[in-house]
Structures are given as C-alpha cells and as structure tokens.
C-alpha cells in the first residue's frame, strides 16, 4: 500500500487512438489561434470554436480512456507512446512525444470535461464583458496547453506546455488589465511561478545530462524506466541525496510554484483578480493541479531507491511541505472576507493535501483527491461566481446573507460542494479521497505529525467553509439591491458538477478501489467486507468527529446570525490578535516585501548606478578621449598645417609683391634700365676684349 510499484508489461506498439492523441491539445490551440486571427471579434463564432474544440478533445479523450479501460479490464497494461526527434545535434538529439497510460487518460478526461462545463458557464458569466472573444481565445489556448502537459511523454515538451499554461494564467489573471490590482496580480503570479520554474529547469537539464534523454518512456530507454533510474541512483549529489532524489526535489520546486505550496503560495489568492470562471478552471481544477500531476508523473524518479522507512528523502520533503501548506492555508482562510479569497486559500490547503497524499500514499491517493477536488472546487468557484453575479458584482461575504431563499439552485449545488470539501462521510466524494490520505498519513512509519496536521487542517476546513456558507446563504440579506438567481447557462453546469461531486466517490471506496487499481494496474474486485475492517471504521469515526467539530464550532459562532459588515467578526471578538494575524495572511507577503523585494529593489538601484556611472562613465571617457583627440587634430591642422601653408603662401605673395615693384609701369624707368644694361654690357664686352 505504501509504494505503488507500477509494473507494466512491455509496451505495445502505439494503437490508432494513441497516434491521434496529439489532436487533443492541438485542436484547442488551433481554435485559439483562429479566434485570435479573427478580424472583428465575434462572440458566437469565438465561443463556438472554443467549446467545439474542447468537445472534440473530450471525445478523443473518452475514446482513449475507453481504450485504456478495456486494456486494463483484460489485464493488459496500456502504456503507449509516440516519440519523435525534435532537434538533432550531431549524434545526440532531443526527442519529444506523448504517452497514453491510465494516469494521462484519467487526467485528460477530467480536464476536458471540467473545462467544457466551465466554457459553457463562461458564455453566461462573460456575456456582459466586451472582451468576450479575447477571453475565449485565452482559455482555449490554456486548455490546449494543459492537455499538452497531461499527455506529454517528454520532460521538455511538458516544460514547454507548462510555460504556455503559465503564460495563459498570466493573461487571464490580468484579463481586466486596466485594473492596477489585476495587472499586479498577474505579474506576481508569473514571477512567483518563475522562481519555481528555475529549479524545474535545473532538474530537467540535470536529468537530460544524466540519462541522455528527455523522454519518460521509450521502450526501456526512457528516463523513468528502470535502466535510467538505476544509473541515477548510483550518482550521489551531496546532502545525502542521490541524483534521482535531487532531481526529483528540483522538479518538485517547480511543482510547488505552480501548485501554490508554502512558501510560493502567495500568488494564488491574488489570482482571484481574474474572472471567476478563470479562477474555477485554472486556479482550482487544472493548472494548480498540474504541479500535483507533475509529481505523479515523475513519481518513479522520486520514489526510486526507497531507503528510510520505505520512502525516499524526496517524498519526505513532499509530505512535509504538503502537510504544512494544508494547515497554513486553512488558518488564513478563516480570516478572509472575500468569497473568492476564502476559496483560494482553501485551494492552497487542498493542494497541500494532494501533495501530502502523493508523499504518504503514492500516485493513486494523491491523484484521487486531485480528481474529486477538481470537481467540487470548480463547483464551488462557479457557485461563488453565480453568487457574485446575483449580488451585482459584490464579493464581500459580510455584505451578503440569506441567499438560500433568493438563489435556491445555487444554494443547493454550493452546499453539495461545501459538504464534499469538508469531507462529510459517505455521500460526498471529498470524504473518500481525503479519508484515503488520512489513512496513509496514519500509517506513515516515520512520524505521526503529518497525520495530526492533516486532521487539524480538516477541522479548519469544515470551520471556514461553514463560516462562509452561513455568511452567504444564511441569515438576512445585508446588501443593497435584491439578489437574483443566475441564468440556466450558469446553473446547469453547477448541477452537473454537483452530481459528480457526489458520485465520484464511488471510484475510491475501500470496497471497490477502482481508482487505485486502475492506476496501479492490478485487478479490483468488489469487496463489501472492506467496510467492516476496524481500521476503516476507526477512520469513519474520526472523520465524523472532525466534521462535527468543525461545522459545529462554526455554526455556534456564526450560525444564522448576520452581523453588519462594520461589526467585528465573532472570532475576532474572541481572540483578536489571532484574528488579526489570520486576516493579514500570516504576514507572508510582508515578509517577502521586506526580504526578497527589498533586495531586488536594492539590486536594481545598484545595477542602475553601475550602468550609469561605471559603464556610462567608461563610454563617456571614450567619447571624451575621442573628442579631445579630434580637438587636438583640429588645432594642429589649424595652426600647424594651415599655419605653415598659409605662411608659405604669404611669403610667396610678399615676395611677389616685392618683385612686382620692378614693374613701375613707367616707360622712363624701363628705358633707363635698358640703357643702363646696354652700357654695362658694352663696357664689360669692351674691357674684357681689351684686357
């Protein structure tokens, strides 16, 4: 139960559906491109393109899923890959490809289905927005990129799609970019995930350098296959880690950034600046789950060479980070007043659960909670969107109340989601998935602290969700205008999701552990007596206690009362300083502001000084040198060259003038000279001949 060794039989040749699997991410991306290139934004074609492309992807995904399920049912593991060389550099090259196995199949179906429902919901939610087509372009691109992450068989291709996912997240958070808070939130999201991505990149490069391939599965030559893993285990990377563990941890850093683990969680609550469907799709169901999915994907790497107590250092780190995140975020969620922010912190907390589940129990445990959480968190966000829509864009819970009468459909579906999230036993999927995690935590050999942290987190979850629901739906209406129910295009997806929030639990009960079996590639039979096992009964009891404790405490504090918005919160009255810390998000942002951002600002100033004074100074010196040289040349030319030349000419002119004096212009003078010359010549001749 600890390590789910996924033993797959040698891979078969790629089947037909695997060969066309690339269509699943490609079609939505192409749709996004087509929407982007539309000359005039037209709503119906844009929505139709996006929804149609994702529906098509869903069809292909379902076909692939059916293929995998039939394979599994017949006892044949399905892991089919299609690989191709992307870049050839001499003899080595970089390969890309996609893989169809149970993990990617189930994730694909979830992303397509939830995405499709949210797309349909968005048609109603964004109906009044003027940037309707831009929205659908971005979400379609996001869907394509997310599906690319899911089916990718190459860490490099995964990273490329990962980056596109991050880009679309940025674009969608900052969708209303005229709002400075939205633009700042988008920037924050991008930069924070970037910090994680740096380590991801390092891990990827290291893996490529060690194994010589970026592919996960390549008929025995992939980096997650036994041959490569053995070579990675033999390398030691310091700090008591093997190369496998170190690479795994580096990749986990990237996952931590995307999935909002502490300390990189700060961007997720601020990401609520985007439209609510965006929050539902990206920041609840899919993108944040990408980090969890990544860890599940490279799980063989992280779990390789299980040493201490049957687990590896990498997985220990994952467990602790997850557990701490679960509690940390749940605490902060208690002190928030914005309906979406409560849900955002709840998401962070649940992501912590998923990571802890991966670390404690393996791929199936973590992934099951991911799948159930996707449905009920999307449901909750969309419900919140419906509430916001109905309350005329009001988001403060203290200004709502009594909506169970005004918005019954929303109330019912929201209640289902809330109960699922709290983990109310038996009927709601959240119970089964969270229970599985608690069970593995309880059975963890190394320490029981994660178990108690997770239990405490569950109590807090029930507490803050009840607080939120009582503020929003119970009590009296504290807003201005009366609230109204949302249109059918928004409530029908809610209903569908509520249905799944209830029924998905069936896939993970101990009686029929289909999910675990499916991902672990072993048969699963229905065993009703599993319900009678003492360990499971104990778990059921503890869950009932947790839920009752949480809901009861919150109901006692908040219940049907509806304090006015200006009044202090009931908890605040009880423990004011605790309340203040929780409301201020446990000062993580402030800490970052003082340390990282302050350092960055200082560094920017230093660089500016360097640039202006030092490099600028050098350039200026060179310039002045040349100028001085030019001046020197000029002076030399002016005085020396010209001087000598001019002097020479002057002398010539003067001498010419002097010589010209001979030409007096007077005939008499000429005559005299003539006569004199003759006399002299004659005298010379005569006396020379004589003498």
């Amino acid at each position, binding site marked *: 139960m600890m390590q789910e060794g996924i033993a797959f039989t040698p891979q078969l040749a790629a089947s037909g559906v695997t060969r066309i699997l690339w269509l699943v991410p490609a079609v939505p991306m192409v749709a996004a491109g087509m929407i982007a290139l539309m000359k005039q934004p037209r709503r119906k074609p844009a929505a139709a393109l996006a929804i149609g492309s994702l529906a098509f992807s869903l069809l292909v995904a379902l076909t692939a899923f059916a293929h995998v399920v039939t394979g599994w049912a017949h006892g044949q593991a399905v892991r089919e890959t299609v690989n191709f060389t992307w870049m050839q550099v001499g003899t080595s090259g970089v390969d890309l490809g996609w893989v169809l196995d149970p993990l990617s199949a189930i994730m694909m179906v979830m992303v397509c289905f939830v995405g499709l429902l949210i797309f349909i919901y968005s048609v109603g939610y964004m109906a009044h927005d003027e940037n309707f087509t831009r929205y659908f372009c971005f979400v379609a691109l996001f869907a394509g990129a997310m599906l690319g992450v899911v089916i990718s068989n190459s860490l490099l291709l995964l990273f490329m799609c990962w980056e596109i996912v991050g880009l679309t997240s940025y674009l969608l958070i900052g969708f209303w970019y005229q709002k400075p808070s939205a633009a700042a939130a988008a920037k924050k999201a991008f930069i924070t995930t970037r910090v994680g991505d740096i380590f991801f990149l390092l891990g990827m490069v290291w893996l490529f350098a060690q194994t010589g391939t970026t592919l996960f599965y390549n008929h025995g030559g992939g980096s997650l296959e036994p041959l490569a893993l053995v070579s990675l285990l033999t390398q030691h990377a310091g700090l008591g880690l093997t190369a496998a563990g170190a690479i795994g941890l580096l990749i986990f850093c990237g996952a931590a950034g995307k999935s909002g683990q502490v300390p990189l969680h700060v961007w997720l609550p601020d990401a609520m600046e985007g439209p609510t469907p965006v929050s539902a799709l990206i920041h609840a169901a899919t993108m944040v789950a990408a980090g969890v999915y990544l860890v599940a994907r490279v799980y063989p790497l992280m779990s390789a060479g299980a040493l201490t107590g049957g687990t590896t250092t990498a997985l220990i780190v994952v467990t602790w980070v997850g557990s701490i995140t679960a509690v940390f975020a749940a605490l902060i969620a208690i002190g928030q007043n914005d309906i979406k922010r409560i849900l955002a912190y709840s998401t962070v907390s649940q992501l912590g659960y998923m990571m802890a589940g991966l670390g404690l129990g393996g791929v199936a445990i973590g992934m099951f909670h991911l799948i159930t959480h996707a449905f009920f968190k999307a449901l909750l966000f969309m419900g919140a969107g419906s509430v916001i829509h109905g309350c005329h864009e009001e988001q403060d819970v203290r200004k709502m109340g009594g909506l169970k009468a005004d918005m019954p459909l929303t109330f019912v579906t929201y209640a289902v989601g809330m109960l699922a999230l709290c983990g109310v036993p038996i009927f709601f999927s959240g119970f089964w998935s969270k229970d599985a995690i608690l069970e593995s935590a309880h059975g963890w050999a190394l320490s029981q602290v994660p178990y108690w942290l997770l239990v405490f987190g569950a109590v807090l979850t029930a507490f803050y969700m009840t607080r939120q629901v009582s503020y929003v739906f119970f009590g009296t209406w504290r807003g201005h205008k009366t609230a109204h129910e949302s249109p059918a295009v928004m409530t029908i997806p809610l209903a569908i999701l509520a249905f799944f929030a209830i029924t998905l639990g069936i896939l993970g009960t101990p009686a029929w552990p289909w999910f675990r079996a499916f991902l672990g590639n072993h048969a699963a039979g229905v065993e009703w007596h599993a319900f009678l096992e003492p360990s499971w009964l104990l778990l059921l009891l503890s869950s009932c206690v947790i839920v009752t404790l949480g809901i009861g405490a919150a109901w006692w504090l908040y219940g049907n009362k509806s304090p006015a918005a200006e009044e202090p919160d009931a908890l605040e009255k009880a423990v004011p300083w605790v309340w203040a810390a929780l409301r201020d998000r446990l000062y993580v942002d402030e800490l970052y502001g003082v340390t990282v951002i302050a350092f960055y600002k200082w560094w920017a100033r230093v660089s500016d000084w360097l640039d202006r004074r030092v490099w600028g100074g050098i350039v200026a010196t060179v310039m002045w040198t040349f100028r001085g040289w030019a001046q020197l040349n000029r002076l030399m030319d002016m005085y020396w060259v010209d001087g000598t030349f001019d002097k020479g000419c002057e002398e010539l002119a003067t001498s010419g003038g002097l*010589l*010209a*004096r*001979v*030409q*007096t*212009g*007077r*005939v*008499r003078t000429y*005559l*005299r000279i003539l*006569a004199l010359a003759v006399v002299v010549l004659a005298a010379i001749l005569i006396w020379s001949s004589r003498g």
Partner: protein
Amino acid sequence: MTPLVAHLLVAALVFAIGLGGALTRRNAILVLIGIELMLNAANLNLIAFWRYGPHPEALTGMMFAIFSIAVAAAEAAVGLGLVIHIYRHTHTTDLDEMNRMKG
C-alpha cells in the same frame, strides 16, 4: 682726329643727348623726340662709315641710312598717333601718370 672719328664723336654726342632727353623729360612727345635724335645720330654714323669706309660705291651705308629714315618716319607717325590716343583717354601726356601697367 680723322674726319671719321670726328663724325663718330658728334654722332655719339647727339646720341647721348637724345638718350638723356628720353630718360629725363616727362612729356611723352619729348621722349619721342629724344628717340628721333638717337635715330638720327645712328644715321650719321652710317653715312660717316659709308663715306670713309672701304667700298662707298656699293652704296650699302647710304641704303641703310635711307631705309632707316623711312622706318623712323613710320615709327614716329605711329608713336605720335598712340600719344594722341592716350591723350584723348587720360588728358595728359605726362609719363609719370601713365603707370597703369604697374605691377
């Protein structure tokens, strides 16, 4: 002093006088007069040598003198014509004022 020498001396004297006049007088016409005197002195020289020379019947000296007279006359005519022309432009015959060819 043979007659030849005497005539030659007279010619030399007249020549010198004519030269002195040409070199000292300011009036252009008087310069021309001096030049005429010089030419005449040369003619006297020629005739003197013809008369006391070896072959007077060859008439060489006489011819030379006659042609000299003709040429001198022509030259005097042209020269005086020039002086008149210049006088018309500058209204003076003073050579000191004719220095436009001054360099």
